């Protein structure tokens, strides 16, 4: 015999209550002085034995009644007994809706089969059963309304996410633990897709634990997959996407299936329109990968969807991948020259300007990056908001008013790059940009001395600029200002070979800041005339521009975080899935972030493009979601693994024709609270009658 509310067995201690009350009553007497004692004495002597006996009988009845009540509330369950009214079943049904469940099977999908199985499970449950239904990612509250649960089963939709089944099982086990029922059942309806079982041994052990108090059923659906080609990578090779500037798109396709695939066309689409000729994969053997380069261009400024797709296998979720790109007509960069020199070639910004626009003079007007050079004295009349980035090149002092404008500009999403040099006065930067505004996460050392030997720069482990270490190896750095960690957070991007910081990256509001402690000209290094300089400068700029689009491409299930202007905080926004224009949008609200507003969206379960319409903003924001790469492996649990699981859980291969109505046949176990309640009522009646009978005058 088990108890559903075992803790309430402590209520048995309440049996002592009638005894305590009886004892207390025996001590609590109203005192009456009395003269006619002899008659009283005779009467008491005549009745004493009877009164004692009556007291004992009443006490026993009351104690028994309370003991039965405590027993009843602990909800005893007799195993192997069935047909007792009032017995309850609690069930949890997990329907796996991870990406692999979208695998095609004839005219159906694995998910559709799983939903059929879930309906069959539901129909096998007795009325009044409390059912907690969950997908692989979202769980519903337990409900006794089986019709509602049935409609929720139909609402479970396919995702392109990777499921963590252990997490789903824990949630279901928790839900069942919180319910009081004589029979607890957990159904996991899944395709037994091996990647979702992760650490099989750990999951098996956990299932065994859960199965100690819960009847666990593993219901498997789906046949083994033979063919699965998947787009394993889609990389637009452009730092600054610009209008009508063709760019390269690198695509990797992998054969995850068990058969060779041949003559598979891979198409590239921009905003749904096919671009160019498809790439035909002649033959791809199982486990093999092929890469191809496709070309695309963005037709207009703003957000565009660049999609690569293929067709013809059983697992469709990884056959299509989209990235969102924001095309800009022109990127304007303001170069502030702190050391103009006598001739153009001597100026501090000479190499920077050419690195940013590495085209002949006559083509510069059409080039997407438009650098403009000003001296410090001309900064007063410059409207910073017109520029995507500001570069301070060996500027001695930051003018007070300019420092304030610069901080506001970066906070609103602008970019700042600082190159050091012999003119730069550390105290001015440290005071205004570090201490006053916190714009610089580090400080410059005031008394830096040139190293004895020239140094080389190496990318850090994270290498956020994806710099080529070999190219950098040829650059000699003779001098640099020292950088010291300050109050702000930063990421090192480059270090010298002696470990000293060379380049740090940090965020400020919606903007980004780079601090490079060597010069942009040839005074302290020969970087500007090395091949590494042009990609270095362009990637700095690319990082600044991309910073605004950070989070526009996420994996299914990840939370989208998009930073927008601080003025939009509190505005409602609607997120639409673009491939299904009929689908309802998700409503959300932009929250207040540090110097910006933040849109967070955690319901991106399907791969593809999503559009975010923010109230009051004319242009919608696009972002893309890629399917989980871990789902592409079609492997399912082997027979040996299933056999091991069968030791602790009930295995069920779902076949809609043959095993409909099979669920729940073996259900046994009955609650005894109903018969116990009747006994308690009978005892209560006996107590009332006896109390009346015994207290009558005799």
């Amino acid at each position, binding site marked *: 015999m088990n108890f559903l509310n075992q803790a309430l067995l402590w209520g048995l201690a309440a049996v002592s209550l009638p005894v305590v009350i009886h004892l207390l009553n*025996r001590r*609590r007497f*109203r*005192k009456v002085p009395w*003269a006619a004692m002899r008659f*009283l004495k005779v009467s*008491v002597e005549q009745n004493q034995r009877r009164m004692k006996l009556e007291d004992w009988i009443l006490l026993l009845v009351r104690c028994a009644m309370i003991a039965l009540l405590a027993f009843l509330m602990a909800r005893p369950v007799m195993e192997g007994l069935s047909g007792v009214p009032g017995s309850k079943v609690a069930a949890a049904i997990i329907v796996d809706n991870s990406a692999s469940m979208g695998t095609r099977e004839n005219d159906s999908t694995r998910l559709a089969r799983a939903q059929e199985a879930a309906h069959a499970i539901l129909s096998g449950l007795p009325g009044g059963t409390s059912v907690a239904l969950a997908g692989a990612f979202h769980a519903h509250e337990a409900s006794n309304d089986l019709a509602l649960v049935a409609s929720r089963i139909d609402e479970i939709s396919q995702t392109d996410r990777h499921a963590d089944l252990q997490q789903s099982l824990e949630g279901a086990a928790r839900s069942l633990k919180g319910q009081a029922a004589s029979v607890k059942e957990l159904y996991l309806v899944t395709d037994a897709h091996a990647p979702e079982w992760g650490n099989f041994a750990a999951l098996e052990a956990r299932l065994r634990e859960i199965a100690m108090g819960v009847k666990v059923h593993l219901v498997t659906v789906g046949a083994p997959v033979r063919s699965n080609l998947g787009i394993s990578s889609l990389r637009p090779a452009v730092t600054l996407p610009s209008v009508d500037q063709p760019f390269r798109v690198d695509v990797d396709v992998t054969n995850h299936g068990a058969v060779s695939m041949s003559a598979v066309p891979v198409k590239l689409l921009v905003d749904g329109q096919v671009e160019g000729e498809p790439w035909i994969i002649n033959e791809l053997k199982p486990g093999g990968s092929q890469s191809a380069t496709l070309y695309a261009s963005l037709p207009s400024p703003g957000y565009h969807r660049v999609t690569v797709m293929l067709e013809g296998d059983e697992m469709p979720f990884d056959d299509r991948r989209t990235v969102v790109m924001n095309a800009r007509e022109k990127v304007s960069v303001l170069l502030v020259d702190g050391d103009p020199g006598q001739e153009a070639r001597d100026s501090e910004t000479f190499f920077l300007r050419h690195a940013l626009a590495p085209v002949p003079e006559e083509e510069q007007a059409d080039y997407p990056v438009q650098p403009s050079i000003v001296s410090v004295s001309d900064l007063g009349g410059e409207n910073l908001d017109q520029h995507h980035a500001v570069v301070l090149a060996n500027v001695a002092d930051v003018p007070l008013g300019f420092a304030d404008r610069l901080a506001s500009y970066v906070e609103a999403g602008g970019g700042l790059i600082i190159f050091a040099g012999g003119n730069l006065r550390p105290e001015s930067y440290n005071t205004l940009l570090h201490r006053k505004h916190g714009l610089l996460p580090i400080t410059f050392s005031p008394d830096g001395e040139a190293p004895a030997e020239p140094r080389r720069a190496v990318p850090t482990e994270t290498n956020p600029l994806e710099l080529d270490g070999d190219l950098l190896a040829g650059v000699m750095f003779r001098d640099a200002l020292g950088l010291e960690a300050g109050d702000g957070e930063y990421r090192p991007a480059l270090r010298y070979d002696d470990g000293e910081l060379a380049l740090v990256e940090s965020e400020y509001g919606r903007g980004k800041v780079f601090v490079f402690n060597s010069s942009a000209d040839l005074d302290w290094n020969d970087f500007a005339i090395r091949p590494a300089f042009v990609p270095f400068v362009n990637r700095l700029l690319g990082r600044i521009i991309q910073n605004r689009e950070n989070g526009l491409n996420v994996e299914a299930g990840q939370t989208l975080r998009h930073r927008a202007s601080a003025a939009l905080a509190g505005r409602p926004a609607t997120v639409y899935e673009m491939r299904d224009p009929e689908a309802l949008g998700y409503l959300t609200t932009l929250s207040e972030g540090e110097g910006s507003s933040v849109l967070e969206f955690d319901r991106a379960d399907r791969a593809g493009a999503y559009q975010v319409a923010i109230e009051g903003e004319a242009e919608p924001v696009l972002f893309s979601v890629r399917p989980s790469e871990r789902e592409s492996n079609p492997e399912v649990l082997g027979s040996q693994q299933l056999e091991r699981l069968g030791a602790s859980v009930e295995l069920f291969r779902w076949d809609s024709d043959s095993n409909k109505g099979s669920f729940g046949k073996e259900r046994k176990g009955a609650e005894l609270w109903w018969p116990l309640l009747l006994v308690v009522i009978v005892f209560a009646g006996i107590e009332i009658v006896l109390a009346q009978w*015994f207290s009558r*005058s005799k």
Partner: protein
Amino acid sequence: MDAETRKLLDPRAIARAEALGMNARFIVEGYMAGEHKSPYRGFAIEFAQHREYAPGDDVRHLDWKVQAKTERYYIKQYEQETNFVAHLLLDGSESMKYGSGEISKLEYGKMMAACLAYLILHQRDAVALGIFDEEVQEYLPRSDNRDNLFRIMDRLAGFEPLRGTRLAPVLHGMAGQIKRKGIVIVISDFFDDEEELLQSVQHLRFKGHEVIMMQVLDPCEIDFPFTGNVEFEGLEDLPIIRTRPSQIKKSYHREFEKFRERLRSDVERHQCHFVGVRTDQPLDEVLANYLTFRKSTAG
């Protein structure tokens, strides 16, 4: 000034005694006003002798037979007009302290004794008062002087019970002590040994006394209306009894009624009067009922 005199002059004692006297007078005169006849004729009604008529005598008492024989007017004189002695014996034991309402049995008994003393002295008969528990604690020898009334009241008012009851030795003692035949009125709850009590009553009867036993009981002693858990504390150093009265009520009633009936029948068997009184009964009503009863039985 001796202690007795001091006690008499004690303003509180005087006030108490006067209050008792006033109450007794109020009760008796109230009764008399309603009756319009001499109430105290009821106590001794035997013919005694003739006396020559004198102006002012009640013509109703003229003996017309003697007048017819002797042509002289004679008035019939009855024993009542002779000085009879009433011995008022009040039980002042601790059991008489019990009172569920405003008045205890002892207070009721005191009032009753005071009323009777007033009545008797008012008809110029003699009254002796004894207050007893295990023995006689207060005794005022017989006197027909109305001025003695205040002393009676004072003794009654000032008495406080301290001991248990032993009726039989007291009554035996009184039987031996009282020389002249009289009326012995015992006011008590008679919670004592019944057999011994009856022997002592028999002793009084043997000595020629008329015995009137007035049993004073509290309503709660008769009705036993208690509920819940009650600890009964014996008033005469008896051990406490804890019980639930509602569960023994019938049994108690049975025992108590048996006692009262036994006492009544035994007392009446010895040609004594037995009067049962509840302390919630108006005293004038009790006295009037009893005196009316006596008058009717005297013929």
